[in-house]
Each structure stands twice: as C-alpha cells, then as structure tokens.
C-alpha cells in the first residue's frame, strides 16, 4: 500500500504543530507563560491594547497551523482501523477516537485561538469584556478534559486490543495513553483557583500536563510513522 500520502500529512502536521503553532502562539502572541487568572480586567485589557499587533499575528499563525493539526485524528483512525480489521473487531475505538479528537481540537485549539483573536480585535472595549473573552478562551484551552480523555481512552483500548504477535503499536503506548488521563485531571480545578498550583497558570494544572502531553505527542507521532511504514502487519494475521 502506498504510504506516502499518510507520511506527507504527518510531516505537515509536525511542521504545523511544532513550528508554526509554537512560533505563533508562544513567541509572537506571548501566551506562554499564561496570563494570570488573578490579573485585573484593566491589566488584561492593557495587555491586549499594547500588544495588539503581535498578538493578532501570532494567533493568525496558530490558526493557520491548526489546518495541519486536524489530520492527526484521521491518521490515527487509519492505523486503529488497521488493528481492528486484522483483529476482527468492529470500528468502535477507531471511530470514538475520531469523535473525541475532533471535538478536542475544535474546543481546545480552534475556539480559544479565535476567542483570543476576538479579544485583540477591539482592545478599546470595556476591560471587563476583554477579560471575559480572555477567561473563556483560557478555560476552553485548559479545561476540556472530556474530549481529550475520550480520544486517549479510544487510542489506549485500540492499541491494547491488538492481539497479533507483533502488534502495530507497542503495548506500552496503550498504557501510556491511559496514564496521561490522570495527569490531566487537575484541569477541572482551574474553576476554583485563581492562584497557586491548580490555577490555569499553575504548575499542576498547566505546566506538568502541557509538558507531558507534548512529550506524549512526540512519541505518538514517532510510532505513527512506524505504524504507517509497517507493510508486514497484515501478513502475520493470526486468527482471533
């Protein structure tokens, strides 16, 4: 099977996610480190007023990069579907991954970048309104545990359900996807705290989950490349 198409999408994803989103969102727009949840409306409004150009351009880059993040869901679908076909399983985990991943990216990436851009669109409006938009965007960025968890669970069960002698993905990757769920649990706490480790800029609600998630993404993409290249996976088909 010609795997070039998948690999090209995956490379575009790597460049999009790593390069453009990183440069745009982090360097230009300055969203890392996150705005303080306990900052006053006036401080936030000033931030958007004084940095309007760099915020807007950075976010535009991030939005553009999102174009190439979305195919990740489909690429996972294709590989998980391979596992299901060979193991005679129905298309459950592969589809659940699509549902979870699509919603997660929409609600966790597309929406926040748009809302932040909306905040920077009219920085002279009432500071409370700017802060409201900023709050909503941060909450959408950090707190949507459910769709991400759904996606991770589906990937975990998909990988662990592979009964072939040499599975398409190593089994430990399935367990790692399960583990990452627990690291994201503190996301729910950001509604209660505006300072400290469990605020949206806190070490346990932001930094630890972000770093771990990014590390997992890198590992998943490496093994996705390997899985795409596994021409021999279907040959070993052991009856299940």
């Amino acid at each position: 099977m010609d795997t070039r198409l998948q690999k090209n999408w995956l490379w575009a994803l790597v460049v999009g996610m790593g390069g453009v989103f990183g440069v745009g969102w982090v360097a230009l727009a300055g969203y890392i480190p996150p705005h303080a949840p306990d900052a006053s409306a006036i401080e936030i409004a000033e931030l958007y007023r004084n940095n309007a150009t760099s915020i807007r351009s950075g976010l535009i880059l991030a939005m553009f990069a999102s174009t190439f993040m979305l195919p990740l869901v489909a690429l996972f679908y294709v590989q998980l579907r391979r596992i299901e076909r060979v193991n005679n399983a129905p298309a459950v985990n592969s589809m659940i991954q699509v549902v979870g991943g699509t919603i997660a990216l929409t609600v966790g990436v597309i929406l926040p970048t748009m809302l932040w851009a909306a905040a920077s669109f009219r920085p002279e409006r009432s500071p409370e309104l700017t802060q409201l938009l900023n709050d909503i965007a941060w909450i959408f960025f950090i707190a949507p545990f459910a769709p991400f968890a759904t996606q991770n669970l589906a990937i975990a069960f998909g990988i662990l359900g592979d009964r072939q002698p040499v599975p398409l993905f190593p089994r430990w990757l399935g367990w790692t996807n399960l583990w990452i769920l627990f690291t994201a649990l503190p996301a729910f706490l950001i509604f209660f705290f505006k300072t400290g480790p469990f605020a949206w800029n806190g070490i346990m609600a932001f930094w630890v989950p972000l770093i771990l998630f990014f590390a997992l993404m890198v590992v998943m993409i490496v093994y996705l490349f390997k899985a795409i290249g596994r021409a021999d996976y279907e040959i070993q088909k052991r009856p299940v």
Partner: protein
Amino acid sequence: MNAIDLETKAALRAAHPRRLPGEVGIWLFVLGDILVFSALFLTFSYYRAHDPELYRLSREALDPAIGLINTCLLLTSSWCVVLAIRSARENLVRVSTAMFALAFVLGLAFIGVKVFEYAEKIERGITMLTNDFFMFYYVLTAIHAMHVMAGLAGLGYLCYRSYGKRSITPVDIQVYETGATFWHMVDLLWIVLFPLLYLVH
C-alpha cells in the same frame, strides 16, 4: 521488513521470558504516576515551607486514627492481592477469586472511609477553598481516591476473570500481575500521602 523477519521477531519475543511481573506498559504507567505524584508532593512541601504555622494548625483538623484505618485497609488489601496471585500460581482458582474479591471490598471500604472523612469536614465548614493546606488535602486525597477507583475497576475485572476458571495460564498470571502492580502503586502512594498530610511536622 518481510514476513520472515516478523516470525523471527515473534519467536525471539516468545523465547525470552519477561523479567518484570505483569506487562512492561504498566510499569511505565506506574513510573509516570509516581513522577506526577512526586510533583504534587514537592509542590505541597514547597508551599508548606512558606507557611508552616498555618499548615500545622490546619493539620489538627485531620484525624490520624482515620488515616491509620485507611492505611491498614489498603495494606491488607494489597496483601490479599499477593495471596490471590500466589494461589493462582498453584491453580487454586476459588481461593484466588475470593482473595481478589476481598481486596476489592477492602478497597471499597477505603473509599467509604474517605467519603465519611470528607463529609465530616464539610459539615464543619472546611472545604478545599478554606485555606492552602485544605486545598492540598482535598486535591491530593481526591486524585489518589480516583486512582483507588481505577484500581477497584481493575480488581473487579481480575475477580471476574478468575471466577469459574478451570485452569490458570501464564497469560492469566501476567494479567493478574499487571492489575496487582497498579494496586500496589496505589497503596504505595497512600503510604507516602498519609504521613505527609496527617503526621509530618
């Protein structure tokens, strides 16, 4: 990579028995979880160092006796799991099923005691927003409790899988050991959590 390489690979895998109990993947899970909990413990210690009086006074609201009961429940539960696997190795299916079930019940009791502990505090008006110590108390024990519940799901599955089995295969043992490893980690986390929150000055 052609089909011959694949067979060789599978054969090599079968020829070299694993040295770790359970699957490799669960150990990565366990290591990762210990890492994240260490971050939580370190954060707690760091914040406590900045306000030792507040933490010392707040700690008095906790009852170490209840914490000790919880510790005993989890330790006994872990011991039951050890007995379950030992008897599984000797094909004593009914004993191992019973031991998994007992471990499950003890774990459930742990949750029950936790709920009672939380309820008693909330009634007195102590919530996770009361002060920093109680923020850590509730969040740390709640995240741990969620791990307990995940472990209970695992134990439940092991009990169900063991029930009515005619003979136990090496694959079964590996599955049991995988679940047991997770449960022991949950126990270990509590053994660190208990003195950290309830006892340390």
